[in-house]
């Protein structure tokens, strides 16, 4: 699947996607010029905090943000068709059919008043012209496929009679009813117990191998994508700030935000003495995002001109498939990551590399419009 010819024709190609929601307080730039690709049969992990635009970009793929009065521009090419330009009725033939989606909270995502079987049967019959009986058979088969025991009986139960993990399995079964080419999984394990999380991820992996579908895995949890994803896109404030294969990203992350994400999760191999380092501050407003690099107010390494210059997502000179949107010099980034890898705090790393602290840097730059950066930790 990674041959150059198939890479030239991805299943899904999102180009400069922008999604804006006009509100009373101003225009929310939920997705601000995002581009990514998903190859057939592969998994793309989209990682970011809540409010980074990862869910909105995926809902937009299915046309589900249209009803909320969103302004959408850019292109979403799926199998050669531009989903942004399709009419609602054309899009409906793709939704739940060629592209399916599962959501974070399986309990609230299933209709509480309809039997699980009825909801599956409906999903089958929207896109396939089959009898109720045949659809029911298919529903039972699907429940079996996702590992629900005794599907003949379970098919007639209501969602509230299922456990959390079972509900998510039922959601997955529903998403698979028409054998989609692409499955979008929006935080599929966030609402579940840790042990159940692992089961659901294993199930998704198994199903992907059996059915050959591509998966977009949206999550805030790098642990989840580490297990599943072939490629990873890190989103921040409506943009992709780093994009690479999973191996590359975990071996040599380039963006300070990605470093922050990696340093804020515990590892089994790391020393216990090594403290977890949270990313200071909170995600920025999407109505008035910070000028320049959107991450600069929270970045421990930000320099005066970072508040002015808006970094573009650019491939690394020596690794074209690895893209990053950061204003620091590649050599500086490499040294910083090495320092962090040795267990240094961001401040120590910055001092060792010889970068001025953001506050001093700002003061010496005498930039009258610069935002006061938040220096936490």
């Amino acid at each position, binding site marked *: 699947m990674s041959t150059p010819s198939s890479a030239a024709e991805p299943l899904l190609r999102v180009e400069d996607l922008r999604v804006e929601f006009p509100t009373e307080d101003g225009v929310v730039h939920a997705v601000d010029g995002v581009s990514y690709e998903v190859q057939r049969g592969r998994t793309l992990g989209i990682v970011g905090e809540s409010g980074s635009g990862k869910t909105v970009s995926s809902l937009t793929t299915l046309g*589900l943000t249209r009803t909320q009065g969103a302004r959408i521009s850019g292109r979403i090419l799926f199998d050669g068709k531009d989903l942004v330009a399709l009419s609602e009725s054309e899009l409906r*033939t793709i939704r739940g059919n060629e592209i399916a989606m599962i959501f974070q*909270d399986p309990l609230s*995502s299933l*209709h*509480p008043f309809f039997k699980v079987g009825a909801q599956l049967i409906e999903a089958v019959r929207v896109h396939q012209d089959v009898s109720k009986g045949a659809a029911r058979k298919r529903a039972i088969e699907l429940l079996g496929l996702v590992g629900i025991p005794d599907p003949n009986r379970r098919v007639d139960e*209501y969602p509230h009679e299922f456990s959390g993990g079972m509900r998510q399995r039922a959601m997955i079964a529903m998403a698979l009813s028409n054998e989609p080419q692409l499955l979008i999984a929006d935080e599929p394990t966030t609402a579940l117990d840790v042990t159940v999380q692992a089961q659901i991820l294993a199930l998704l992996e198994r199903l992907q191998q059996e059915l050959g579908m591509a998966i977009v895995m949206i999550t805030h949890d790098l642990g989840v994508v580490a297990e599943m994803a072939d490629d990873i896109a890190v989103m921040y404030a409506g943009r992709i700030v780093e994009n690479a294969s999973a191996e590359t990203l975990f071996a040599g992350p380039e963006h300070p935000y990605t470093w922050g994400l990696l340093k804020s999760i515990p590892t089994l191999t790391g020393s216990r003495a090594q403290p977890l380092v949270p990313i200071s501050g909170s995600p920025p407003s999407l109505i008035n995002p910070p000028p320049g690099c959107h991450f600069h107010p929270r970045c421990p390494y930000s320099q005066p001109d970072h508040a002015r210059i808006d970094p573009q997502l650019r491939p690394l000179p020596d690794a074209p498939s690895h893209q990053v949107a950061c204003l620091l010099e590649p050599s500086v980034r490499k040294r910083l990551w090495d320092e962090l890898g040795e267990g240094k705090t961001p401040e120590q790393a910055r001092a060792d590399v010889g970068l001025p602290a953001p506050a001093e840097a700002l003061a010496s730059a005498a930039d009258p419009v610069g935002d006061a950066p938040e220096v936490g930790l």
Partner: protein
Amino acid sequence: MTRYIIRRLLWGVVLLVLVLALLFVIFRILPTADPAKLRAGRIQNPKIIAEIRHDLGLDKSLPAQFWIYIKGIFLHFNLGYSYYSNAPVKELIFNRLPATLSLVLGGAVIWLFTGLSIGIISARRAGSKLDRASMGTALVLVSAPEFWLGLLVLFFFASDIGKVHIFPGAGSYVGLTTAPDKWFTSLIMPWVVVAAGTAAIYARLLRGSLIETMGEDYIRTARAKGLSERRVVLRHGLRSAINPIVTVLGIDIAVLLGSSVLVETVFDIPGIGRLNYVAITHSDFPIVQGTVLFAAMFVILANIIVDIAYAYLDPRVRYS
């Protein structure tokens, strides 16, 4: 489920006894006109009054009277006799029931249909001019007293006194079995008047409930399945949003069955409300007592039906 229904029915009986006790207190113990005197006629002979008092059992102790009253109702459904015509109240009420049922059930069909349609349209176009216009109209209709609305409609559309002679006016009611076409035309205006306020309430209720439901995660799932927007709203959305309507529908019908006094009086429909109105003006207490008991029974019954319906509508209630 059966146990649940039985429990609810038993509670209904307990409630009915409480209502009976309350009625007994109101009509027998609290100071009212002496029933015996009321029945004695113009020439008030103390001997006759004493006789009547004995016949009515009013010379017995209050607990004994209550026991007889309860026994009569539970064993024979005996509601007593009119002071004026001496006719059994039970019969009077049953004779009047068809007219009231016609009025209320026909009205319910209209208010359900219009209220729900407007509610759905308003919810789907929340904030639009259409939505604001219908919600404004609804507010006016909710606030308009029924008798005033009734008089207004008669003033404009009644075939005898109206500005435009379209519908048969007050007093034109005939039974369904006598002449179905006349039954229908005579009830059009009363139906509209009975339905107006309730339809407005239902429209507002459903609008709010549907707007809330349409924001639920499972609606997003329904859309993600590729269902048409029509099916998403009418099947998935309405199925949840309708629950509060079911709750109020039962109670509304029941309350109206017992108390459609104003509309029946304005349109001169020989229903229970009209019976009650005339009885009140004549101090014919057994009839008043009987109609009130009837109304209470309807409400109790409606509550039980609503609870059972609710259990069927919401599977989560059914099993808990």
